[in-house]
């Protein structure tokens, strides 16, 4: 009760403070036309109420979070309903089945516009899952991830433009090229960690973009490459609608493939080594893990997906130029991983849908997009730093398990 009163008092103080701070902006307005000063007292009331409510909710959430942490510290493993549900295998299979049916039926139910939006969301799902390998699992902060995406897209665009190679031939080539660039970038940054790593990867992302913009003989500069072939299906001619649907299905297949592979990798010997590297580099090396190889493999495998989906991106838009591969893209992909939950596959997928679909459907508020973006990030870091869905640890079966559960 006293806590509530304290919160109430504090919130009143915050409200008063905000009223004071915003007074000149929100209340006083000089009307230069009529040379009078307008006093908008109603604004004052609104500011006070808004500040009070926000502050009170803020305090309430913080208190709740702290109470939860206390419980966790006492060693009681508490699981939310969602976690219990997610760990139930039969539920998982059912949910996956339903989602797959929805995903397959989507282009039949909705129009081409919706399908196009969905394709770009799926592209970001794959990008997020790829970045999740290096950032979420191996803990290597990569701010230039979009560079690999650009590598894949330009690989297809150029090879298609000059030599007429088709989409299906270049799809794996794009992935492998992404991989190679991952290794090339990986070598110089083997010794770096944390902030330094972030700066170098940021630079790498910039370099790729600058090269693409300025090396006109190679990449056609800022004007980009147009008339890239759409994916073919045994030489059939397709109109825009059916071609979009076709790309959508390719994308669904690619997403399923990515989920399958990243899931298996995460729960393998390699995946464990990545996580160990993230947790403690020195201990990891002292346990016999080859740091160079582990880091490079994380980078290369992360880049692989970006390269591959880059090919699809080029095929989907049929036109690419360096403007599609700005730092902003890297930041968005990173936000997807952080918002969704580092290391969590389901979280990253959710994060991608939220960050890509919401702005599409809330076009009315597009001016405030970046504002909302930033606010969401800040709130996330304060109240749920582990992301929307925190990583679920794999359960292992071992011989002692049976007796243990029988006794307990």
């Amino acid at each position, binding site marked *: 009760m006293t806590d509530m009163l304290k919160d109430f008092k504090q919130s009143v103080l915050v409200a008063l403070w905000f009223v004071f701070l915003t007074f000149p902006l929100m209340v006083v307005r000089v009307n230069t036309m009529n040379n009078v000063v307008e006093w908008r007292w109603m604004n004052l009331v609104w500011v006070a109420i808004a500040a009070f409510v926000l502050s009170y909710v803020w305090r309430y959430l913080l208190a709740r979070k702290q109470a939860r942490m206390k419980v966790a510290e006492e*060693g009681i*493993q508490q699981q939310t309903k969602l976690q219990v549900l997610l760990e139930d295998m039969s539920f998982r299979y059912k949910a996956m089945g339903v989602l797959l049916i929805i995903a397959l039926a989507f282009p039949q139910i909705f129009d081409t516009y919706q399908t196009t939006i969905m394709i770009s969301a799926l592209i970001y799902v794959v990008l997020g899952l790829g970045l999740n390998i290096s950032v979420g699992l191996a803990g290597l902060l990569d701010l230039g991830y979009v560079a690999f995406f650009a590598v894949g897209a330009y690989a297809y665009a150029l090879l298609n433009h000059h030599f007429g190679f088709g989409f299906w031939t270049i799809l794996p080539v794009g992935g492998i090229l992404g991989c190679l660039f991952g290794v090339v970038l990986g070598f110089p940054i083997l010794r770096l960690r944390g902030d330094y790593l972030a700066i170098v990867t940021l630079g790498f992302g910039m370099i790729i973009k600058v090269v693409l913009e300025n090396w006109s003989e190679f990449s056609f500069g800022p004007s980009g490459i147009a008339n890239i072939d759409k994916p073919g299906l045994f030489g059939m001619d397709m109109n825009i609608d059916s071609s979009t649907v076709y790309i959508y299905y390719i994308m669904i297949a690619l997403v399923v493939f990515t989920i399958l*592979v990243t899931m*298996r*990798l995460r729960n*393998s*010997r*390699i*995946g*464990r*080594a990545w*996580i*160990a590297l993230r*947790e*403690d580099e*020195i*201990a*990891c*090396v*002292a*346990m*016999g*893990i*080859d*740091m160079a190889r582990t880091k490079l*493999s994380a980078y290369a*495998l992360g880049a692989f997906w970006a390269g591959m989906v880059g090919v699809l991106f080029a095929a989907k838009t049929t036109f690419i130029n360096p403007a599609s591969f700005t730092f902003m893209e890297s930041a968005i992909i990173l936000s997807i991983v952080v918002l969704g939950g580092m290391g969590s596959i389901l979280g990253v997928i959710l994060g991608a849908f939220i960050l890509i679909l919401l702005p599409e459907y809330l076009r009315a508020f597009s001016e405030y997009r970046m504002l909302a973006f930033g606010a969401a990030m800040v709130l996330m870091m304060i109240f749920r730093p582990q992301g929307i869905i925190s990583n679920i*640890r794999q*359960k*292992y*079966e*071992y*011989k*002692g398990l049976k007796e*243990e559960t029988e006794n307990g």
Partner: protein
Amino acid sequence: MAEKHKLLEVKGLTMDFGGLRAVDSVSLEVHEGEIAALIGPNGAGKTTFFNCVTGIYDPTKGDILLHPKGLPTRRLNGLKPNKVTEMGLARTFQNIRLFSDMTVLENVMIGRHCRTKSGIFRSIIRGKAVREEEQEIVESSYQLLQKVGLAEFTNEFAKNLPYGAQRRLEIARAMATDPFLLLLDEPAAGMNPQETSELDQLICKISEEEQIAILLIEHDMKLVMNISNPIYVMEYGKKIAEGSPQQIKDNPKVIEAYLGEETDA
């Protein structure tokens, strides 16, 4: 009794950090079946010595030779830490370095990494061989946890373990790499007397049952005197004494190092 097989031989190891000589030509040997101890006041260079042996630092001078049984001698100078571990020399850390966001079982499973070999592609395809190897890793890791008495915590996060259990988990993790020599850096630091005596028994058990030789750094004199022989004493980077517990107790230099120099008033 025949001469015991020499496992680790360090000759004149010197480590400089700029102008500071942290370890000054220290020689030391660990034989099969031994529990050797390295003691000394704070800042004597014990941990630096460990870091040199395990490849975290590249020593300025001296030789670190490993003589695995039935295999040719290897010089460890300048090898990467993971190579040293692969050769059969595992360590724990003074300030606990567990993978805190992994479960207890997974921590031990990491130790199995260098003894298993599924690569990226085989992990993606996950054939029978890979699945069997995974199961083998899980089983052997669980057995190790039982050995150090942590089976009840198997699926807990490592960060949620009590302090003493974290220390034991570090030992289990190191043992998972199949070492023949285990370096323990202050395993009893921060433990209460009861935990210390349990650790005492655990170390003896490892040494006897697993045939793993042990070299430990420790401040807890009772533990050192109880279980280890020989004992090496370091001060200011130099080795000042070596011998059996009794010899060390009676050595005037050691008493001086620990209790301070006697001065005429």
